[in-house]
Structure formats: structure tokens, C-alpha cells
């Protein structure tokens, strides 16, 4: 579904991604790990079309379409979802209004009629239970005054509502206590199917205990320098990144 070839990107003339190659197929879970500043969050920002970043080379194909040519909202309609590391608070915009607008924009994109208020609320209720999101949160402004855990659960709730084909979870485990981590991971696993795929960006093996990856990639200095099965995550947990850094730096 996703084919990234030699992707290069910069922010304010600073080159962050220096040639990423990655292919994701339906049903797969990919974990992307790597030391701080290696470009993990940049990759998710570039894939979702954050205007702060400039793509300087390479290509991204998503179900045969040139992803980089699409606006962020059209990427969402086509089935791309990002769970933010730091979900944004939007005072004054209620979760209900926000989600209804998002769903109806997607339906409009595919030439469908807007969802009726009753059907929409039913859907909200149904999806809320997946991440045990309190009804009170759903009626409040988007992320405003939410705790760290509630914000992350809210991200997965939105993912459940939008039913994306490819979800990128950007450090979804950061700021979560153990119980919240389990709830969030269960939510992700519930939504998993043979038709959708997940890219998990994380620093820790802990999340991967719950969301089992098929592949683990190590991002370093804007490139994927190592790819392997889930056992790589365990090895990193034990040995850290230094041995990979040395290996890569000595080759250069």
C-alpha cells in the first residue's frame, strides 16, 4: 500500500531525511525506532503533509497515488492517519463538531451524503468504548484540558472513527501510565485487520509487547540503517543504539 523511495526532506534548510526507503503492505505492523533526532517524527510529519517541512527528493506512493501531491486533508480521505506525539488542543471546537465535520468531509470526498445526527452519535458511542473514552470528554473541546493519557486515547478514538488504511502512531506510548498504555494498545489491536497497516514510532520495547510488530526498523541520521524482525527491538532494549551508530559511522 505504501512505497517510500529515497525520501528526502528538510525544515528551514536543515536536511533531516536523507533517503528513506520503506514498503508497507496491508496487514503489516512496522516499528520504527531510533535515537533522538534521527528523523522519526519528521517522517510522520512529511507523510501527512505538514507544511513546515519541504520535500527535497524521492517519492511516496500510496495505493498507486502520488501521496506527496495530495493535500493533508486528501491524504486523510485516502486512508492515512497520524496519531500525534503531542495532540493539539483546540479550544472552542467541540469533539462532536470536530469529528462530525471530519467524517462528513470524508463522505463528501467520496460523493456520499452526510451522516445523520442520530447515526453519527451512535457511531461515536460505539467507537468510544474501544478506548474507554468517557462521554464527558467527547462533549468537551478537542483535547482541551485532557490529561496526557486522555489525549492519546482520544487519538485512537479518532482513528477508530475514521477507519484509516494506514495509521502512524508517533510515540503514542510517551506520557502513558501502564494501564493507559494497555488500553491504547488494546484499542489499536482491536482496529487491526488484514486490510490495514500500522507504523509504530517508539523509543521503547514496552509498547511492542502489546502491539506486536512484523518488522523493526532503525532510523539514524535520516536513513533506515537496519531492518529486521521483532527480535531487533529486544536487542536494542538490551544493548542501546551505540553499536549501530558505530557500525554506521565507521562505514561512512
Amino acid at each position, binding site marked *: 500500500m505504501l512505497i517510500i523511495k529515497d525520501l528526502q526532506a528538510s525544515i528551514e534548510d536543515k536536511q533531516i531525511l536523507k533517503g528513506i526507503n520503506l514498503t508497507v503492505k496491508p496487514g503489516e505492523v512496522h516499528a520504527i525506532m531510533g535515537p533522538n533526532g534521527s528523523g522519526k517524527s519528521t517522517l510522520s510529519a512529511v507523510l*501527512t*503533509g*505538514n*507544511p*513546515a517541512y519541504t520535500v527535497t527528493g524521492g517519492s511516496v506512493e500510496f495505493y498507486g497515488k502520488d501521496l506527496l501531491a495530495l*493535500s*493533508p*486533508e486528501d*491524504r*486523510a*480521505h485516502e486512508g492515512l*492517519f*497520524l496519531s*500525534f506525539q503531542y*495532540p*493539539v*488542543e*483546540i*479550544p*472552542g*471546537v467541540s469533539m462532536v*463538531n*470536530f*469529528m462530525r*465535520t*471530519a*467524517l462528513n*468531509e*470524508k463522505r463528501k*470526498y467520496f460523493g456520499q451524503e452526510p451522516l445523520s445526527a442520530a447515526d453519527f452519535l451512535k457511531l461515536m458511542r460505539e467507537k468510544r468504548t474501544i478506548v474507554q473514552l468517557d462521554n464527558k470528554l467527547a462533549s468537551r*473541546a478537542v483535547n482541551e484540558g485532557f490529561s496526557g493519557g486522555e489525549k492519546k486515547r482520544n487519538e485512537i478514538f*479518532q482513528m477508530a472513527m*475514521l477507519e484509516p488504511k494506514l495509521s502512524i502512531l508517533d510515540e503514542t506510548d510517551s506520557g502513558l501510565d501502564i494501564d493507559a498504555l494497555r488500553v491504547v494498545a488494546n484499542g489499536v489491536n482491536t482496529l487491526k485487520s488484514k486490510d490495514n497497516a500500522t507504523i509504530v514510532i517508539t523509543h521503547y520495547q514496552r509498547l511492542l509487547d502489546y502491539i506486536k510488530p512484523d518488522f523493526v526498523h532503525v532510523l539514524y541520521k535520516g536513513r533506515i540503517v537496519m531492518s529486521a524482525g521483532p527480535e531487533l527491538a529486544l536487542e536494542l532494549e538490551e544493548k542501546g543504539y551505540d553499536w549501530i551508530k558505530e557500525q554506521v559511522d565507521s562505514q561512512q
Partner: protein
Amino acid sequence: MNALKQYIDLYDESREAIEQQSPALLNNLRRVAREHLETARLPRKGSEDYEATDLEAVFAHDYGVNVNRLPFDADPAEAFHCDVPNMSTCLYYSSNDAFHSSPTAERNIGQVVVEPFSMAAVDYPELMNAYYGQLARMTDPTVALNTLLVQDGLFIYVPDGVVAERPIQLVNIFNAALDMMVQRRLLIVVGKNASIKLLACDHTQSPDYHYLNNQVVEIVAMQGSTIDYYDMEESTPLTRRVSSIYVDQHEGSNVLIDGITLINGFTRNNYHVEVNGEHAETRLLGMTIASGEQHVDSHTFISHNAPRCHSNEMFKYVLNDSAVGAFAGKILVKPDCPRVEAYQGNRNICGAPTAKMYTKPQLEIYTDDVMCSHGSAVGQLDEDALFYMRTRGIGIDEARRLLMQAFVADVIDGVRLDALKDRLHYLVEKRFAGTLSNCSSCMAACRKN
């Protein structure tokens, strides 16, 4: 150039006609107004408190003045009916400069007095004489001009202890088939422990003519009274409005004034509040949504003349295209007024690089033991929030609309009239969606449509 001169000349020529068709108490003040105008000049752009606004240019246009009180419309109550859902108001109209009541006006009968000055001068001469022209300052040439030419007005009186059950709604309509200036004038007297909610809506029916509403409102809030005054404008690019609201607050009174501009041409709103009694509360709210070449300028002055009072003002502007907004607010705390709390906020969004906002907050404090603050900010829509919404599939235009709506939401939520609050959320949504037409937003929908 002196734009005032044409109106002074008109007065001198038509004095007899003007006075014959007005109650005597209006005529008594004309002489004073005439004296003030002798040496007065309308402020030009750049004068003190007029950093963005040129009143001279606004009044220089050759407007018609209906000196002989010719009727324009037989009865606007016939042509309009109230269209605010769930809000059962007592409805009154002013068509250009003439007042009309509607059958719904009888709902408050026996409680609240709403009469044109011509009637009130006969029915309530003591009140009219005691309060007419007492608060408004003739040092402001627009107030002097109003006083010089005004021939009728609306008197609203809530007797002591009366709590008006239904809100009073006054729909002001411009519908003359010629360029025209009117002097609207309101005198509102709310007795001890009495309470009333008022909604004034300014509308313009014809987009083709230049209209100027030069308005003066005087509000007396007696001891322990509660007053809500909502003042909404939804007019046309050729409509100009200069409005001055003067408030006198006695002990323990609670006054909310909310100025809302949805669509207009040129607007200058002055709010002048004298807090004269202890434990009085003042809430000033303002919301402006402007696009195209709209110009909205608000000037507030709250003078705390008594201890232990509380005032709070918040004005928000959303400016797009080449719209110009201005806000100048001053809070004065006089000597020997301890324990005053006074807050002022002005927050603005410039949604386009060509939109302009001028803002000037001022505090002047002569007592030690007070809590006062002011804050003023001009910015753009939050880029992070926009991107977040786009990743959820909300298009950029829709995302901008939601953020702009959210920005003004708290000002709308300050409205203490639920039906109006809901209606405003709806109108603002339509306004940002660009589907607000003269008819749909009009609270007095035309029966013909």
C-alpha cells in the same frame, strides 16, 4: 472642510419645522447643542482615540434628513415578523426614524413602558425631564449633532421592582429609497431592583443607498437593577453607523452591554460607563466579524467612581480581506475607590495580510488597593491546530472556519439570553461560511420571502 456645517445650516434654515414636530423637551437642548457645534470639529483620522477612523469623511456625504417627518412605510409590523426561534420578545420597530410597535408589544403591558418620546413627554414628563440628555456628553460633536436634529426617540422605563418577563426587541430598519441620515435616540431608565433584557438589531433593506445612523443611547441603572443590552448590526457595505452608549450605574446594579457586528460598512461604537455606586457590576462584550472593506471601531471608557465595583470587558475581532478593526479601551479608577476589580481584554485575528487591526488598551488608576489588568493581542489562526484538523480530513477552508468560530465562541457564550445565544452561534456559523444573506440573518424576516 467642515462636514458639520451643512447640518448646522440645515438646522438654522429648518428650525421651525424641526421644533414644531418635536416634544418641547427635545427643543430645549437644541440651543446647547447648537452652541457646542459652533466651534466643534469632527475628528479626523489620527486624532486622539480616532487612530483608524475618519468621522469627518463619514459625515461629509450629502445625506437626506427627514426634517418634515414624512412617513416612508405605512407599518413595518405588517411587513415583518420576528424570526428568533424560542424567543418570545416584545417587538418594536424603527423604520428609518419613526417608531412602531407590533401586536407582541402588549405582552409586557402593565410592567414595562415603551413609548416614543412624543408620547413619553406627555405620560412621563418628570422622568423625561430628569434624564433626557443628562448622560450623553455634548463635547462629542456626534452627540451634539444628534441632539440638534433629533425629533423623536424611544423611551423605555421599567418601574422599581419590576422584572420584565419578556425581552424587548427593537428592530431598526433602513428602507428609504434615498441616501439618508437618521438620529436614533434611546432613553432607558430601569428602576430600583428592576430588571430587563433588550435586544436591538440594526438592519438595512436596500443595499443601494448610503445610510448613516447617528445614534445616542442613554441608560440609567438604578440601585440593584439588572440590564442586558444586546446591540447587533447586520447591515450593508453602504451603511454607516456612529453609536454612543452612555450608562450611569447606581449601587449594586448589574449591566451587560454586548455589541455585535456581523456585516456592516462603517461602524464606530462608543461605550461610556460611569460606575457611581458601590458593588456595581459591569460587563462589556464585543464581537466583530469583518471582511471585504468593513470598518469597525470600538471605543470604551469605564470610569470607576465608587469603591468595591467590578468591571470586565472583552472585545474580539476576526478580520479578513481588507477589513479594518480598531479598539481603544480605557479604564479609570478614581481616587478613594478601593477594592475595584477591572479587567479588559481585546483579542484579534487577522485572517489575511491585508486586514488591519489597531488596538490601544489604557488603565488610569488613582487608588492603591485595586485589581486591574488589560491584555491585547493580534495574531493569526493557530497553524498547529489547522494542520491537526487537516490530518483528520477537514479541508483548510472548513478548518479555518471552525477555528474562527471557536475564537469568538466565548464572547457569544457571555450572552445571558439562551435563545439569542443559540441564534448567534448559528448566525456566526453562517457568517463564516459566507452564506449569511440579508434575509436569513435578519431577525425580522420579511413575510414576502
